[in-house]
């Protein structure tokens, strides 16, 4: 029913599987090669360390002219990620370039976990806590990581 997969997506998928990025995995679904099941490890030294975060990634028809759609499925306590798992990241919006790839985007997301930016909040409650009482916020983020971000 769907059009043949563009070469770009085939190559990207191959490379993701043959030369995986450490701490990141992205598997296309069998029935839909544009839909990926993504796992990202919390970066070492961050409050998400030790967590394995599940995301869903979808490549829309006009990919790579348009950015992929990505959302956290695992609950996460982070000022730039809201309760529905949506992510506030410039490269997923205004600063998307068709030369970017799934792998670079996932790396950016991993970097965002390592460097939360409460100045540009998406989840205001979390960002407020982050600014007013950072140690408490980091503690909560750790607890949530233990609670929700463990691969069975």
């Amino acid at each position, binding site marked *: 029913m769907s059009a043949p997969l563009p*070469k770009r997506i085939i190559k990207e998928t191959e490379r993701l599987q043959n030369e995986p990025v450490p701490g990141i995995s992205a598997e296309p679904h069998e029935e839909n090669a544009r839909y990926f099941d993504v796992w990202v490890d919390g970066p070492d030294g961050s409050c998400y360390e030790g967590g394995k975060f599940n995301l869903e990634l979808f490549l829309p028809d006009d990919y790579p002219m348009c950015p992929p759609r990505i959302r956290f499925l695992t609950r996460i306590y982070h000022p730039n990620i809201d309760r529905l798992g949506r992510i506030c990241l410039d490269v997923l919006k*205004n600063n998307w370039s*068709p*030369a970017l790839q799934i792998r670079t985007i996932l790396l950016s997301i991993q970097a965002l976990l390592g460097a939360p930016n409460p*100045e540009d*909040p*998406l989840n205001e409650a979390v960002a407020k806590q982050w*600014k007013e009482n950072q140690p408490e916020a980091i503690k909560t983020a750790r607890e949530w990581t233990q609670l929700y971000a463990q691969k069975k």
Partner: protein
Amino acid sequence: MDSDIEDFNSVASSDGFVEDGGSSFGGDDSDVQIDDDFGDDAAFETQEKDLKAKKKHFEVDFSVYSPQDIQDQQDKQVDEVAGLLEQPKESTAILLRYFRWNKERLIEQYMDNQEEVLSKAGLGQDMTTSPPRIEIKDDFMCDICCEDGPGLETFAMKCEHRFCTDCYRQYLAQKIKEEGEAARIKCPGDGCNSIVDSKSLDLMVTPDLTDRYHELLMRTYVDDKESLKWCPAPNCVYAVECGVKKRDLNRIVPTVTCDAKHGFCFGCTLADHQPCPCSLVKKWLKKCEDDSETANWISANTKECPKCGSTIEKNGGCNHMTCRKCRNEFCWMCMGLWSEHGTSWYNCNRYEEKSGTEARDSQAKSRQSLERYLHYYNRYANHEQSAKLDKDIFHKTEKKMTLLQSSSNMSWIEVQFLESASKALQQCRQTLKWTYAFAYYLARNNQTEIFEDNQKDLEMAVENLSEMFEKQPDQLAGLKVQMMDKTAYCNQRHIILLDDTAKNLKEENWQFNTTLS
């Protein structure tokens, strides 16, 4: 950082323009031969001219430009500056757009620090040497589509971010067609700030896109200049230049007319709303639409950019907003400047609570004044409705005039009084309508009585004329002189009312029961 702008003004205002051109029975461009032996009509025409000759308080100076005029203006400026900076025209155009056509500032900063200006505007150094061209490179793989076959055509600007021409074209098409970008399309390379110049663009895209691109460039030129505005009438191609500034709008209602005879307000691009100043019009319309679903949706889902007033829908993302039109960066919650706001963003919480109570207070107040409001609203709506009915009659006028010509042996030129009457009715009702919105916000003082008298006189004159206008064609012939008198009287009362209100507005003699924002 995401914002979507819908210019609701320009969409919503397509209705209600007083169009007095284009009619088949005697617009300015009609090629009907006029015989010499109708002395009274000639006299009537000169009378109309006399009225226009002297500048009234409610008139403003403006000029109308066709798309070609605007293109010429741009070309002229580009030529001038290109010579000065010794840059090719394409680069100069990018520089000028970057500086929003402020030549002086561009030249000053360019002379100060050429390299910085060039890179900030998205131009690498050395645009002067080779023209853009499509090349075939060995061992090339396009980073966008991953094609790597031999003989693949590729393109890159000076920044050397090279992609295959198919992808480049698709990217440009996406930007131009879907996103409506033109002046600020960046190189598709990740993180590259180079702006795609018009020469590269002409080389890369199909002619239909080139047309759209140049149209968009023209739009940005007009949008970038405070003294230029597009005629808001649907499909109208003209732009109007007017020196009235935003800060003058509380003292003047700048009504202008494009060459296609669309009258509109230069301040807010709504249909002519004299004598009511723009800010009151805005308030009034908001108030009137309080119940409509659209108004509810707009107020629930959109805010206005605090700098340029564009209506913005936040469709996702964080509170850091960047207005797509004026590039103003602000906080969605408190609407304050983002730069001033950096570390204390959470003050916004408090702000929202406060504005919440304010909203509730104002609701209670509006209920108290509901009765007063309805008095004015009913009269406002009545004139709007009557103007529509008059317009229907206007469309039937031609038929009436033909009938009149056959039933009473009058010639074509002799029945022109009907068209004049119809025109007068439209214009007067448009003004009367807005006098009620104006009156609603007016606080009583000595001036208001004169205003109300003027309003009453015009209203009576208009109603009289309107009544005559509805008569059967066989009766109309006998009413000719009376109707011509009444038309002239309406026009005269119209001018008196407009002149009085405009003069007092200019001299700040009106007191309003609300603040003019």
